[in-house]
Each structure stands twice: as C-alpha cells, then as structure tokens.
C-alpha cells in the first residue's frame, strides 16, 4: 500500500522530482569539477559564492518545495479531500510521503555525495557513512520542518506565504536576540554539533506531536499557530546557555567526570590550579582556570584566522560587573600563526576599543575560549593546488607567507597545509597547521555545507587524562606520503593525532599591571608555582603535563595534583650538557613532544639540537650538531628547530629554518640522521 501511494505521488510529481534531482547532481558535479581553489584574484575561487552559497541554497530550496508538494498531494487542512473517506490507513499515507522524501528528494543527494566521495578516492566506508549521515541530517533539519509546513498548508502559495511570514519573524527575532546581548556560545566552537542534534530531535518531536494533532483533530488553524510558533521558537535554541552541550561532549568522549584540576595564569602571571567545583563561575575578577595565556595582543592582526571563538568581557575591578563584552578571535600558537612571537603560546586578540577601555579603566579582561584540538586519522593524498585537490568547503585561510591552511571537511578529515606554487621560496613556510575545526563524535559528513561542522571518523581513546584536556597545543604527526605517481607532485599531508575539545575560561588579569612584568619561574604547588615563558606543552600517558619554559631554559613538569617541578635543566642557565635532571642544560628550548614510551623530545632551539628526556629524566641529544650532519648519508644540520613532533615509526619531524631563515621540515631518523622533507632548499620540491 505504501508503495502504491508512493507510485501515485511519483506519477504526479515526477517532473518536479526530476528537476530537483538534476539540480542536485549538477551542483555536485560542478563543485567537483571546479574545485575550491580555482585561482582567482585572492587565491580563492572566483565563483565561490555560486558554488558555496547559491547552488547548494537552490538545491535546499528545491528540496523544501518538493517536500511540501508531496505532502500537499493529499492535503491535510480542509474537509473536502477525497482521501479522507477512503480506506487509506493514515500511517501508510505518512510512511509513503516520508519514503518519497527519502528516496526521491534525498536519493540524488546521497548518490551524488557517494559518487563524489568515490571519485575523490576516499575510503568507501567513510564515504557511505558520511553521505548517509549528511542525508539524515538534511532529512531532520530541512525536510522535517518543510513537512510541518506541508501539513498545515494546502497549496505551494500558501506554504510560501507561511514560510515567508515565519522567516520575517525569525529574522527580527534573531536580530533582537543578538542585540540584547545574548550569546551563541557554541556556534563557532567545537560543540556546534550539539545544537544541530538538539534541533534535529526537536523537529522529530514536533512532528510526533503536531502530526497526530492535525490528523486526529484536524484543527488546522490551531496547528498552524503552533507550527509557526514552533518554527519561530526553535532558533532560540542556539541562544541557550549550552552547558549541556559541553557535558554531552565530555560524556561522549568518555570524560564524564569533572576535570581533576584546571590550570590558569592570573594577573601576576602566576600559574594557579583551581578545583573545578570551587570555581567561581561568573564575571567576578580573579576567576582563573586553564590555558597558558602569556600575552595579550593589543591589536588585531591584519589577517586572522578564526581558530576558535572567544568571548571577551571587561570586568570592573571595583564592582565585579561587566563593563563590556565582545567577541574576539583566539589565535593559535606559533605553529598555527607564523607571525606570533615565540613567547606567545596563546594569543587573545582583543578588539582595539576593548583594549583601550581596559587600559583606561584598569579593568580585568576575562575571556571564554573554546579550544579545539582534534584527531584526524587519515592520510588522504593531497595533490597540488591547481588540480583542485581541496574540497569546496574545507575551512581554509590564506595565512602569512602564502601558506594556505585548510582543514578538510571530508569524511576522512584530512588536515593539510598547502603551499601556493606561485609563492617564492622565501614565502614558503611549511607549517603543520590544522585550524579551527570542530568535532563531532560521529562522521558528520557535511562537506558541502559550510555552516556545518567538521567530521572525524573515529574517537580517540588515548586522550584519557583530563590533564591532557587542558593542553592547547595540537600534537602533530607529519607524514611524508608518496603519491600514486611517486613523482614529487605530492604535497605533505599532516595528520593531527589528538582530538579533544574543551572550553576554558580564564582571566587575563589587569592588563596594565601585567604588561612588561617578567617574573622568573618558581616551583611549587598550585598558585605558588610560576612560569617565566611557557611556550610548549605536551602530556605523557600518566597525565603529567610538561611545559617548556623558554626564557629560563628548563622543562617543567606539572602533575595532575597540581605540583610543578623542574624536570630537566637549570633555571636561567644555558648550555648543552646531557645528564640527569638538573645536570642537563638547554638553551631557550621552544617545543616539546612525547612518544608512545613517554620519552620527551625537546626542540632545543638555542643549541640547534633535538634532545630526548627519558621518563626517568635522563637527557640525551638525539639530533643536531655535527652528529647529524653526515654528508655521506645525506644528513643535514639543524639550525633553528622550533617544533618537534613524534611519528609512529620512531622518527621525529622537526620544523627548522635554513640559512635564509625559511622554514623547513626535517625528518630525524631513529639513527639521528636529519633529512629534508619539505622546504625551499629541497631540490625536488615541486615547482608548478
């Protein structure tokens, strides 16, 4: 019977269905053929607004119209329809309509997604799950509301008027909500998916309530009001204080219990540890928790990449009330943001007006950050720019040095840094940068929808320690892949290996007092401890945090109980001695990484060495200096290593700089030999 009704609707609506399907397939084909990086004036597609906005928008609109039309083939409002007195079970009728939407409306969407995924040579399982997920989400977020409109209207014109009315109210509503200072705390964070999930569930719930109401009571006018009110009220969901979203994220991540502690730096640049339960939540000054904010940037850089969303509040020290609040962009550390000074591990770019206000009023700056780190497990081959390798809705930004950083929203979640082949050697700065992706715990493959979130194929169980959650730095593994043609046209694919999301909140302290102060490091527990210039962080498998204290040239260890000790080196003393603990010396180290056996690797920048610290604290030199430079085996010297990461095969990848101060990527083999992987000094580096 369901099939019979389905066939009747298809017979009536096939021309419209064909147009909708064709539009979908054409759009997908066009997007695939065009590629995102067809080079326009500024490096992005000149037709971006067509492919990113207009075409998918038209497809969605067509889907909505088709959904409404199929419902209206057997309209619910009114008392004169023929089907009302026919022996057609209501359930079958509804099922037939839902089937129609799924097969005829969304079938082409699914098909074009799967085909484009296969064409892109993505893993089949990922393609299928991701495409199915996208289809389901479209069903829940687009088709169900359209279905609600369909059950209370009799004609497309009526539906259009109804929708337009709702849209107008919605627009006003959103403007009013935004103007009244209500925040959308999750929208640009890694938790946006919880909003989508909530909207989806709400839509299903609304349908379950309203459809029987309309079918049974047939009180169309009343149901119309309810549907309109529902559609208008739903977007308010995004303005809810979404604490539950964070909780859900943690629960899904296997981190249901509260963080053991939170780390923060207060106005005196003193690190402090606050048990989360005792935190004073709110606007009050002195509220500290995590991250390592070691500087406040007074100006907005001329080009910023929105790593994540930060909400900045200025707090009057006398009253504790907010003076002003604003959105700001949080910038990443050096590897994410090349121009950032080495001492800036985490930068909050304050809007200029806020900065001046803070300075004048001696106000405390409080920032709510939504940090996102992530794990991406794929090593999808990335071809050159001009071959349209990056899919259309990757989050990409053109950074300094003509490096375009992208996070693919493909189901495999490739994270790439692609160099512009037109850039000069000097401008090339390979950087394993994965930017502001958001995370969903399932493969949410919305790669054609720029507003939707990033997808990750699998969850990472390794990040069990909550201490790891406070790490703002993304451990990266750089893999050097050979392309299918093995012809050096292959660019690097950088794979991040940690995935964790966390909202952190901290006070930046009194800006005027904090400026210019240079306290020395000091060991201690909780608030007693101080850091000189913490620039690099990592965690071991026991949940200890290791921090590179740059200016004091030491490696600090922070246990999960909040105790800070000097793990290796002597504060303020530089040198290159190996040895146990304080016998060893470093010279302004920059970065630290950990391998599977909990060995730490330190980019000892001043010494141009890579040092290893065993779990017992014994420091040795693994690369750099004369030992690595073995011309016979092609070994190279390290000059200015600033980043180090561990690969699974035991080798290390290091971001170094060559004689021209261009950034290069080096591989340090287990034998200590340093090899060139990428960078302008590589003769084999692809030229376009």
């Amino acid at each position: 019977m369901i099939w019979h009704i389905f066939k009747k609707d298809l017979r009536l609506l096939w021309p419209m269905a064909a147009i909708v399907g064709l539009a979908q397939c054409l759009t997908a084909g066009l997007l695939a053929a065009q590629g995102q990086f067809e080079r326009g004036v500024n490096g992005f597609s000149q037709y971006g607004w067509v492919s990113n906005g207009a075409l998918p928008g038209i497809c969605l609109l067509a889907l909505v119209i088709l959904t409404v039309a199929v419902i209206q083939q057997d309209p619910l409002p009114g008392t004169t329809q023929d089907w009302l007195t026919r022996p057609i079970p209501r359930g079958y009728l509804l099922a037939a309509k839902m089937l129609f939407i799924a097969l005829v409306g969304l079938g082409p969407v699914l098909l074009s997604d799967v085909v484009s995924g296969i064409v892109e040579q993505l893993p089949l399982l990922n393609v299928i799950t991701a495409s199915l997920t996208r289809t389901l989400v479209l069903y829940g977020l687009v088709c169900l509301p359209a279905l609600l409109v369909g059950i209370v209207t009799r004609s497309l014109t009526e539906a259009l008027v109804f929708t337009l009315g709702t849209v107008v109210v919605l627009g006003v509503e959103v403007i009013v909500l935004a103007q009244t200072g209500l925040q959308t705390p999750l929208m640009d964070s890694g938790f946006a998916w919880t909003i989508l999930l909530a909207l989806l569930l709400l839509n299903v719930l609304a349908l379950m309530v309203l459809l029987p109401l309309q079918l049974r009571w047939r009180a169309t006018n009343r149901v119309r009001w309810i549907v309109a009110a529902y559609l208008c009220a739903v977007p308010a969901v995004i303005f809810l204080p979404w604490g539950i979203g964070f909780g859900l994220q943690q629960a899904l991540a296997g981190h249901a219990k509260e963080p053991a502690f939170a780390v923060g730096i207060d106005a005196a640049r003193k690190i402090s540890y606050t048990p989360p339960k005792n935190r004073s939540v709110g606007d009050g000054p002195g509220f500290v928790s995590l991250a390592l904010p070691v500087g406040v940037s007074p100006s907005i850089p001329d080009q910023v990449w929105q790593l994540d969303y930060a909400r900045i509040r200025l707090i009057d020290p006398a009253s504790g009330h907010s003076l002003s609040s604003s959105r700001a962009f949080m910038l990443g550390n050096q590897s994410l943001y090349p121009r950032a000074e080495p001492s800036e591990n985490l930068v909050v770019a304050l809007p200029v007006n806020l900065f001046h206000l803070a300075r004048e009023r001696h106000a405390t700056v409080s920032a709510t950050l939504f940090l996102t780190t992530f794990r991406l497990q794929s090593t999808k081959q990335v071809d050159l720019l001009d071959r349209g390798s990056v899919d259309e809705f990757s989050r990409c930004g053109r950074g300094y040095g003509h490096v375009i950083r992208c996070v693919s929203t493909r189901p495999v979640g490739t994270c790439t840094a692609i160099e512009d082949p037109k850039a000069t050697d000097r401008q090339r700065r390979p950087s394993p940068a994965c930017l502001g992706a958001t995370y969903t715990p399932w493969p949410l493959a919305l790669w054609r929808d720029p507003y939707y979130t990033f997808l990750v194929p699998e969850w990472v169980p390794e990040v069990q320690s909550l201490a790891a959650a406070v790490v703002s730095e993304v451990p990266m593994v750089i893999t050097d892949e050979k392309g299918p043609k093995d012809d050096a046209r292959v660019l690097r694919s950088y794979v991040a290996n940690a995935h964790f999301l966390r909202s952190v909140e901290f006070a930046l302290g009194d800006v005027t007092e904090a400026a210019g102060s240079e306290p020395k490091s000091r060991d201690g527990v909780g608030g007693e401890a101080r850091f000189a210039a913490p620039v690099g962080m990592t965690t071991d498998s026991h949940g200890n945090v290791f921090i590179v204290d740059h200016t004091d040239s030491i490696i600090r260890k922070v246990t999960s109980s909040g105790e800070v000790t000097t793990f290796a080196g002597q504060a303020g003393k530089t040198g290159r001695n190996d040895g146990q603990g304080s016998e060893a010396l470093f010279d302004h180290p920059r970065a630290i990484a950990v391998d599977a056996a909990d060995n730490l690797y330190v980019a000892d920048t001043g010494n141009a060495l890579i040092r290893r610290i065993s779990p017992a604290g014994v420091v040795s030199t693994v690369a750099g200096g004369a030992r690595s430079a073995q011309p016979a085996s092609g070994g190279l010297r390290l000059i200015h290593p600033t980043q180090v990461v561990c690969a699974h095969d035991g080798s290390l990848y290091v971001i170094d700089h060559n004689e021209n101060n261009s950034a290069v990527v080096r591989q340090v083999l287990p034998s200590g030999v340093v090899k060139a992987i990428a960078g302008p000094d590589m003769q084999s580096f692809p030229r376009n």
Partner: protein
Amino acid sequence: MIRTEELNKAFRHQQALRGISLSVPEGSMYALIGPNGAGKTTTIKTLLNILLPTSGRAQVLGVDSTRLSPTEFAQVGYVSEGQELPPRLTVGTYLEYLRPFYGTWDSSLERTLMSEFQLPRDRAIKDLSHGMRMKVCLTSALCYRPKLLVMDEPFSGLDPLVRDELMEILLQQAQDMTVFISSHELDEIEASTTYVGYLENGKLLFQEPMSALGARVREVRITLPEAPRPPPQTPSNWLNLTVSGNVVSFVDIGFSQDALHASANALFPGIQDMEVQPVALRSIFVSLARASRDREALK
C-alpha cells in the same frame, strides 16, 4: 446502519448541530432534507469522521464515528458536491489508484459504469466538467459495492439530463445498499426515498418513513360562500394558511379526516367545498421551510 444520539457540533461562534438523534435502517434510502445552513453537510461530515462531534455520539456500520477505520471506510461510499479529487490524475489512473484499497472492487462494474457514464479514461480530472466529475465520484463510490452510500447534495449544479442519468444509475446499482442522501432535488429522490429526516437550524424536527409522512400531510382547499376574515388562531398543524377571495388553503401536517372537518367547520362556518390532496415531498419541504421562515419573521 447509522444511528446518532444527541449529536452536537459547535464551531467557534456557531452551534451547527443541536442534539441530533437519527437512525437510518438497513436497506433504506434516507433523505435528509432541510433549508440551506440547516446542518446537513455538517451532519454527514460528522458521521464520516471528517469533523469531530462536540458532544453526543454517532455510529456508522455499528462503529463509533470517531473510530472509523479503513475496514469501515471500505464499505462506505461517499459522494459529495464539493469533493476534491486529485486534480492531476486521469480518470483511469484515479480508479486504478483506488482499486487496491478495496477488497470488493468490481472491475466489470467499473467498466460498465465508465461506459454508461461515457467517462474519458485518459482525461485529467481537473479538465472535466462538474457533471463529469460527479460521475467519476459516483463511479468511484459504487465500484466496490459499498454497504452504505452517503451522498451530500450530489445533484446540485447539474443539468436535468445529468441529474436523471446519475439517479437512474444510482437506483440501478443501489438495490441492496443503504443510501443516506441530502439533497434539494426532492422530485428526483422522492420516488425511491423510504425515510425522511427534516433538519432545521441544526435540529432534527422529525424523521419518519416516507409512507407515514405522505399519510399525514395534506394540502387543503376550502371554498366559502364569501371571503372570510382571517381567523385569529389556527391549529398548529396547519401551515401556510392563505386566504384568496373566498378560498382558504393550507397544508395540514397532522392530517386526520375527522379532526380536519371539525376544526375547519369551527373556524369557517358554511363551507361550500373542501378539497384534500396528498402532497409531494417537494411541497412538504417548501411548506415546512416557509412556515419556519414565517415563525422567524414573527420573532
């Protein structure tokens, strides 16, 4: 077949049905008559669960009207003046679409009706005339030989030819069916109607077998020697009393030979002639409606 008890239906500002209790025996042809706005269509829609009753209950085929399921609908045919058929389907595909929903669909009857009504199988329903559309409606309601056929003003807006055609085929096919019909075309249905219910302003004024109704209503003409003065009060069963010259005429809705003579002689002494004639359903309706209008005017 149909039974209602104290059926009430109120719309927002209007009481459409007021305590209707009617009963349609099996095998009968029940005509629900009444002036426009009396509540006939509302009654039918409530019976078929298109509208929910405000209070009271209705049973159709022994099932509460609010619980009618596809099983019951498969035995009920419904033809209505304003019925909306899927406009873009052709007549053929529409009947094809309906066929699987009815276990008792008779394809040979479908062919017969199609040819008798001369329905074009390939024409879209929206391109049909009103008369043709009603024929499609009736065909789609007869093909499965329903036990109960409910018709709501099926003949309105049709020319006499089509009306006759529809009625003829309806009578041919409806031999064992119970037919519940609301219509203004009383001449057409009078011959075959077995029960009549009169609805006025949401109230069922009476319902009875056609034979009983016919027996109790008479048109009376009294000729007097000279023009009489209008009597101050007449019996309540005399409707529409008119005096024209020396002739007095009225409709007696509670006719009995003796009572009529007694009352007439008392009111009009010296009657020269009294003519008593049976009345057609149409005239009964007109008399009742006019009387009602007069009562309203007096109020």
